């Protein structure tokens, strides 16, 4: 399938060079003749006029061989020609590459069943695309003018046809050594020349990575080792390949190899394995999780086991490299840039698997090469960084000297020792910073060692070492100690105040001077940029968010005049802008965190001082210089100092974070509200946070306004309701008086023949319900009852009336005369 596709592609490319002479005897499609030098599109730089004759001879020889490879019907013929091409491929690399590339690829495709010819073709291609130059090469200088090497140019041509890679990958499955090995070597050359392209092609070839991984199981060491070399390149910077390689049990296989090779004492093969492990974990959270979940951290621990006789047998350079690579792997898992959850769980596992302990063992062992020691300190730093339990453990590590001293103290001793190498001193600072990172207890303990009340004051404490380093007069020691000390104050207001209590006896008999005062004095007297920068960063950290410290600085007589003079000066010394910027920042902090307790330097006074002595704009310009400094962004990016020389040690990571956080606040504090603008500026001049704040307030006001309106409406509603109730009450009162009238009327009407109790009830009713509205109901029921009674009485009356009439009738019947009574009866009934 792929064969026909390939052929049709090449036919399309050069239709005129078809060779029609050879009959197809084995069912093969007719071969095509190879391209000539000119038609193959090889850069003209390969040809040199001086060598024209010899070149021509070689070219014709190669041309003939290529033709034989392509057109011969007999396998033996093609095989011989291929062998000859291989033999020429070093000496006449240009010719074989330029003319024979297609023919050789064709062999890989069509003659793949014959391992011998395939082996020759692969060997020839290997030579043609090798990244190295061969001694016997005819004109090795021919391509030196070109940007890319000969091997690279041929690689590019070879890889234009991605199917070629698929063919070579296919040969990895061939067990025969003479095929598998050159195929592997060819891929190694290709990845050396064009790593990105080959990674992409292998990634999408079916089972490409898996085929390579299978080679690690090959019992022929050459193959396994070369496969490892290929993997070191293949796994570099490609997350997808890294994950597939990890999925194919890479960690198991690699640690098996490392163990076979003897861990740290293993040779370069162990190093290759560690480099691959490192590559697989680099910036790859998924693989880091897998590494931790698969319990591979534990498999690292034998790397750090030092035999007891290390000192006698010494450290081979390979062992140094292997341990350095293992340390790199450890650091990759706990790098400050990793997701926090990965880092903290790896830190825990590294501790539980005994690796942290082993690393601390290396720290305290004697005879450890300095590069190993430095990297071990860095690794310990990152393993304990921000992890309370590991930090606590680190504090308990003791150095095996007499009397035993804490490892932390021993490390700080080397930091303030001018004779120690720069990298080592920087790594100690980093380790110390990591120890203090998010460690309030550690910060407090450090400051505690400096306080007068403490019984621990002595020469051997961490605090004492740092202060003596600060005062040592050696600029690097001063800088390192200042930065270390400033980390005891990061986000810890309590310690900022505690440190104010530290007093120093500078000269025998003299009054003790406060540490802050001493820092100011050193700042004024020192003429070394590095020392000054260190002290300024310490002061900035100290004074930020701490009005008490600001007051202390302002009370030091010459401090503010010195700082303002510095900001305004132009002395053209090295890093002048940075120094001025830092001084401006410190003044700004004094304004921002000023509690107005020093009368001569209140917030307002300081602002006036700035505009008079320095000028508003100038001050802001100088302040801006800090973040413009070339080392600022570098320091801000990563917590670890990356310094190759002493001059590069100027800005510290935590300080840069502080600067970034406070810069806006400082600018605002030193910019006074301009006269005539009562609101302090228009909306246009506001910063992003301010305008968002403004928006928030506007929103608040809007919602409050709405609430107010709502309240008003409710009030009106209640008012009208109240009026309605008032009216209702009046209405009820009216009803009551009406009822009262009715009652009176009824009582008058019913006084004849009604019982005494009734009349007294009516009496009661007429007096009682004067105001009470509730009683009116009672009255009403009473009234109802009375009406009923009355009705009953009326019925009774009617009955008696009827009886009276009957009696009258009877009397009439008996002849009696009846008249007067009838009229009154009728009158009574009418009234009712």
């Amino acid at each position, binding site marked *: 399938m792929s064969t026909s596709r390939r052929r049709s592609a090449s036919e399309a490319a050069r239709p005129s060079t078809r060779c029609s002479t050879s009959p197809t005897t084995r069912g093969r499609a007719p071969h095509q003749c190879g391209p000539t030098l000119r038609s193959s599109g090889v850069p003209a730089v390969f040809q040199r006029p001086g060598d024209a004759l010899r070149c021509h001879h070689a070219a014709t020889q190669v041309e003939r061989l290529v033709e034989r490879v392509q057109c011969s019907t007999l396998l033996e013929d093609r095989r011989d020609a291929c062998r000859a091409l291989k033999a020429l491929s070093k000496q006449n690399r240009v010719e074989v590459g330029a003319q024979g590339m297609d023919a050789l690829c064709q062999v890989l495709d069509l003659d793949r069943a014959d391992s011998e010819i395939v082996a020759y073709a692969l060997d020839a291609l290997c030579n043609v695309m090798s990244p190295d130059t061969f001694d016997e090469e005819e004109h090795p200088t021919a391509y030196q003018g070109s940007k890319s090497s000969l091997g690279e140019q041929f690689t590019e041509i070879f890889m234009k046809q991605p199917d070629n890679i698929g063919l070579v990958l296919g040969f990895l499955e061939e067990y025969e050594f003479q095929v598998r090995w050159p195929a592997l070597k060819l891929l190694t050359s290709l990845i050396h020349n064009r790593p990105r392209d080959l990674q992409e092609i292998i990634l999408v070839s079916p089972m490409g990575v898996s085929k390579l991984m299978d080679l690690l199981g090959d019992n022929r060491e050459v193959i396994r080792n070369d496969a490892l070399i290929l993997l070191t390149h293949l796994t570099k910077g490609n*997350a997808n390949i890294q994950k597939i390689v990890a*999925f194919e049990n890479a960690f198991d296989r690699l640690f098996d190899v490392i163990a076979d090779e003897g861990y740290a004492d293993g040779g370069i093969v162990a190093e290759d394995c560690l480099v691959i492990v490192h590559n697989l974990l680099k910036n790859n959270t*998924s693989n880091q*999780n897998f590494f931790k979940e*698969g319990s591979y951290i534990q498999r690292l621990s034998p790397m750090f086991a030092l035999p007891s006789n290390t000192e006698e047998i010494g450290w081979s350079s390979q062992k140094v490299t292997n341990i350095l690579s293992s340390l790199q792997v450890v650091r990759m898992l706990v790098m400050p840039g990793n997701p926090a959850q990965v880092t903290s769980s790896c830190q825990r596992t590294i501790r539980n698997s*005994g690796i942290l302990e082993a690393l601390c*063992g290396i720290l305290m062992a004697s005879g450890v090469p300095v590069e190993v020691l430095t990297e071990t300190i860095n690794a310990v730093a990152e393993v304990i960084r921000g992890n309370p339990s590991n930090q606590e453990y680190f504090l308990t590590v003791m150095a095996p000297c007499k009397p035993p001293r804490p490892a932390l103290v021993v490390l700080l001793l080397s930091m303030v020792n001018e004779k120690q190498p720069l990298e080592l001193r920087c790594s100690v600072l980093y380790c110390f910073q990591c120890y203090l990172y998010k460690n309030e207890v550690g910060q407090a303990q450090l400051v505690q060692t400096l306080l007068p009340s403490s019984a621990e004051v002595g020469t051997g404490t961490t605090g004492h070492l740092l202060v003596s380093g600060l005062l040592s007069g050696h600029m690097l020691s001063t800088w390192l100690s200042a930065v270390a000390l400033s980390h005891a104050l990061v986000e810890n207001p309590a310690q900022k105040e505690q440190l104010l209590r530290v007093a120093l006896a500078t000269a025998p008999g003299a009054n003790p001077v406060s540490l802050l005062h001493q820092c100011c004095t050193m700042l004024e007297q020192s003429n070394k940029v590095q020392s000054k920068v260190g002290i300024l960063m310490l002061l900035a950290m100290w004074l930020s968010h701490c009005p008490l410290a600001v007051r202390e600085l302002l009370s030091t007589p010459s401090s503010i005049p010195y700082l303002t003079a510095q900001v305004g000066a132009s002395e053209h010394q090295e890093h002048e802008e940075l120094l001025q910027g830092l001084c401006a920042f410190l003044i700004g902090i004094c304004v921002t965190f000023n509690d107005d307790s020093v009368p001569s330097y209140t917030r307002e006074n300081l602002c006036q001082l700035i505009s008079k002595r320095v000028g508003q704009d100038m001050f802001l310009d100088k302040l801006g210089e800090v973040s413009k400094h070339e080392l600022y962004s570098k320091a801000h990016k990563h917590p670890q100092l990356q310094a190759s020389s002493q001059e590069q040690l100027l800005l510290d990571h935590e300080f840069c974070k502080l600067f970034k956080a406070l810069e806006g606040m400082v600018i605002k504090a030193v910019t006074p509200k301009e006269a005539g603008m009562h609101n302090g500026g228009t909306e246009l001049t506001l910063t992003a946070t301010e305008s968002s704040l403004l928006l928030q307030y506007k929103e608040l006001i809007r919602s409050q306004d709405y609430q107010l309106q709502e309240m008003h409406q409710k009030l009106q509603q209640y008012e009208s309701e109240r009026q309605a109730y008032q009216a209702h009450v009046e209405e009820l009162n009216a009803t009551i008086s009406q009822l009262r009238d009715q009652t009176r009327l009824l009582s008058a009407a019913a006084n004849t023949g009604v019982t005494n109790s009734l009349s007294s009830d009516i009496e009661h009713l007429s007096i009682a319900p004067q105001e009470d509205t509730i009683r009116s109901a009672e009255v009403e029921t009473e009234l109802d009852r009375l009406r009923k009674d009355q009705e009953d009485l009326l019925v009774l009356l009617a009955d008696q009336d009827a009886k009276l009439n009957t009696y009258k009738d009877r009397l009439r019947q008996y002849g009696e005369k009846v008249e007067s009574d009838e009229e009154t009866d009728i009158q009574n009934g009418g009234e009712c």
Partner: protein
Amino acid sequence: MSYAYLFKYIIIGDTGVGKSCLLLQFTDKRFQPVHDLTIGVEFGARMITIDGKQIKLQIWDTAGQEAFRSITRSYYRGAAGALLVYDITRRETFNHLTTWLEDARQHSNSNMVIMLIGNKSDLESRREVKKEEGEAFAHEHGLIFMETSAKTAANVEEAFINTAKEIYEKIQEGVFDINNEANGIKVGPQHSPTNPSLSPNGQDRGQGGGCC
């Protein structure tokens, strides 16, 4: 930490059917309504117990998008189990199952246990694929079947655990060659005498003291 067996799983299926959410629900017991597209593959792990034995599941959640197909194919070979997921509210994801299954069968080892999962069972009102259809498909192709909801966690545990049970049974029957790691199964280092993990409090300090 130690385990009797380790099984490798992959999760496959069309994009947006909830593969990553199933994994997150299984490993972290939470649901994330908005999830980024998976790029390539992501790894997750959890320990389960079957038959009183600790079994560690290592799960590779693959990207469903066509663009990553050639990359995700590399994961079939080394997996012992696969969760093939479709979305019951989108018929086309069900229609694509045949393609997925062919792909899986072609690139995986023949013993790989495949569990068919109809996800989003909480969205009954928007259902487009009947449960019976899923059952029928599974029956036809010899798969285990389950409807799940990564949102409500319904059947999520069961899906992962039942797949593991099936693999475990196959091991007991001797179908899997557990010494060949290419099958996606690893025997745990339970009774390994060379367990390198040391106690955190440094009881081995007698040895370590030499270099301290």
